């Protein structure tokens, strides 16, 4: 399954020095810059990581969770609870 180009691009761009502030303070206006589907946009607004997970490169998802304030321990907890039944993105 192909991940979502613009969702990945959003996460990629949030790696910039002002990424955390953009995401925490200006989420809606940041989202306006990307032609995301309505479903993805809504999932981003409600922090629905389970919906976003299969649409995202795992390395970018890890970074995105950090931007959202989740350290490694919290990220592991969130990700392990995602019951995705899909082909694992492995090495």
């Amino acid at each position: 399954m192909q991940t979502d180009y613009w969702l990945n691009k959003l996460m990629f761009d949030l790696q910039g020095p002002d990424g955390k502030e953009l995401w925490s303070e200006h989420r809606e206006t940041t989202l306006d810059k990307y032609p995301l589907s309505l479903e993805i946009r809504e999932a981003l607004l409600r922090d629905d990581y389970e919906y976003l997970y299969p649409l995202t490169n795992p390395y970018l998802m890890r970074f995105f969770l950090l931007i959202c304030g989740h350290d490694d321990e919290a990220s592991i907890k969130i990700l392990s609870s995602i019951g995705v039944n899909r082909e694992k993105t492995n090495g």
Partner: protein
Amino acid sequence: MAKLVGSFAAGHAPNIARSWDTMKPESRGWLTQHYHEMGRRLSALEPDVLVIHSTDHWVNFFLDNMPAFCVGIGEEHEGPPEPFMKPVFPHETLPGHASLGRHILDYALNNNFDPSYSRRLKLDHGMCVPIWCTGLDPIPPIIPVYMNLVEKPFPTPQRCLAWGHMLRESIESYPDDLRVVVMGTGGLSHSIGETTMGWIDEPFDMACIELFKSASDDKFATDLETMLERTGNGGAELRAWAVAHAVAGSQGFDLIGYAPMPDMLIGCGVAEWHMVA
């Protein structure tokens, strides 16, 4: 003529830099001991140039342009852009080696490889954590070779071995007297951003170590390809180790150290290959 004088590999977990001051003392002690040993061996070889292979961690490339191999041929490259690297490795730029970089690029293009190239790359933690941890001073000029190991499709292990063999020929056909060391960074097992994040696959790591010790290229490529389908996504970085393996002649290595390090999220390996003439 240039000479390949050494080949090494080491893990490059970002947490090594991110949590250096706060990690468990035994982790910091292990890392210090084993990376410094690698640095001691590397310095003793008096390298003029380092050719470092690593995956790009979404720093130089995105899905609009994702080269399997990209050779850095610039006179200099940018230091790591990640904020967590700045306190420990505050280099704004690092010297490249444009002439040997261009020679490797030309040699590759004339020998059935089609890498992309860049005259200015950002050297992310994948390249800079091992350089920093080994304590190299001064840092020799670097030819960075980025590989795509974060977003499928990846170069096959067989292709990475072939790249390593080609790289050896290219180095040894360079006309100036240079002492060259190759390094592969990343691995061993880890799982990043997956539902299995934090998983360290020790049986995978042990099996890889056995392959590096004694496997033929055919067995190595076949077995690694199969093993990578069953472990975490970070295992893909073993392809950079495969380059270090092949460039040395695929005749075994000295494992400087291995430790599963849950706080670094990796099975951490440090190794030096036996050099075959």
